[in-house]
């Protein structure tokens, strides 16, 4: 049985760990609030943007824009958006798994895959595969639209140079504080969402003919398409950011609870050992007294 002192120092250690994890939980909770706010602020922008994109592309041939060109797929690029920091449970490894599945799927079809890693964790995991073309690390802490823009521009340039025929993006989608799932989207060639709601379709159809454009629709599209890439990339980063904090919050909450359980068990052990010690001492004293009497 462990000595009293050992158990006591172990309890102390676990208590300190619990302090750290519960502090991290609170930090993650407040960061999550910020990240979620950022995400919600961005939502109206994306919605309006997608509306405009689909109404504009409804009456245009997609073939004429290099960024929308659908090519025979030989090479695939996957943009993997993960967090910079660990200690957020299985959040990143779920994304790795989804990405690895996609990679092996394409490779079994004989296609070449290259990766762009956003976030330190993704880079660390995929570095040894030798597929990482570019990595953007240490930006998930506080990023702005222009961070997303530089990533999007790089990916677009690679696509236009013919180095990749199709570009996917994988990120941790924020479903709720409790649930985050890896989510995959096609980034390039750009396929504007065709909204299913009847209202939007008729609106787009009605709008198709009688819109005035300045400059011409094609020139507007030339401006809009790179912007669309930025919006998509920024969106993926926002979602991953919020998911990361939510995942960390849950993980740290679990850790704190596990610590508390451990402290309870250890305290029980400690008390038992103490009790056994006292009993043994009492026995000694009684034994000694008996011996003197005799």
């Amino acid at each position, binding site marked *: 049985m462990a000595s009293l002192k050992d158990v006591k120092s172990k309890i102390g250690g676990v208590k300190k760990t619990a302090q750290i994890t519960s502090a991290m939980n609170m930090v993650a909770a407040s960061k999550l609030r910020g990240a979620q706010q*950022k995400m*919600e*602020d*961005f939502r*109206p*922008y994306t919605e*309006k*943007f997608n509306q*405009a994109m689909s109404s*504009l592309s409804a009456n245009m041939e997609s073939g004429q824009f290099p960024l929308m060109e659908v090519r025979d797929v030989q090479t695939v690029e996957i943009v993997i958006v993960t967090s910079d920091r660990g200690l957020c449970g299985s959040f990143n490894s779920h994304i790795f798994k989804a990405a690895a599945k996609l990679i092996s799927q394409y490779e079994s079809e004989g296609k070449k895959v290259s990766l762009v890693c956003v976030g330190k964790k993704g880079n660390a995991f995929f570095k040894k595969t030798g597929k990482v073309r570019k990595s953007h690390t240490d930006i998930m802490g506080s990023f702005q*639209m222009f961070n997303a823009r530089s990533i999007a521009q790089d990916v677009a340039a690679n696509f236009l140079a013919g180095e990749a025929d199709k570009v996917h993006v994988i990120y941790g989608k924020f479903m709720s504080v409790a649930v985050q799932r890896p989510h995959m989207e096609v980034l390039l060639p750009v396929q504007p969402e065709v909204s299913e709601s009847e209202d939007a379709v008729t609106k787009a159809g009605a*709008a198709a003919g*009688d*819109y*005035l*454009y*300045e*400059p011409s*629709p094609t*020139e*507007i599209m030339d*401006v*809009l398409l790179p*912007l669309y890439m930025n*919006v998509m990339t*920024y969106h993926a980063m926002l979602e991953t950011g919020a998911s990361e904090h939510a995942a960390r919050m849950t993980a740290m909450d679990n850790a704190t609870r596990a610590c508390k359980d451990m402290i309870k068990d250890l305290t029980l052990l400690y008390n038992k050992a103490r009790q056994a010690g006292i009993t043994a001492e009492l026995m000694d004293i009684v034994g000694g007294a008996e011996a003197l009497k005799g």
Partner: protein
Amino acid sequence: MAEKINLEVVTPKGPIVSEEVDIVTAPGFAGEFGVLANHAPFLSTIKIGTLRYKKDGTEEELMVSGGFCEVSNNKITFLVESAERGHEIDADRALQAKERAEKRLLQAREQQAKIDRTRAEAALQRALARLRIAQRQ
């Protein structure tokens, strides 16, 4: 003025303006344009510059940077990368930014670094647009 048009300015940081206004003037691709109520459907790209709107006789000014705008169903929506109201603009900062951008442009011209140049030009335009509004306030 009876009829009004619904103006919305949306940026990645959220909606900035959502109001019923009388007239909107914006820096379009081919120059400044004005939009009144019941304008025909219209789509244009937006340059860095000043967005003005009038509401019940008072005029408001916003600094907008690149994006586009859509007019349909008596509603005008601006999707821009950033928008700032006149009183939010820090004139000193804008002045500093202007000087910085000018310096960088000069350097770019000497060394012919192309990427830096486009960015510096955009920064200069933004700074100038801010200054123009700040001076009118």
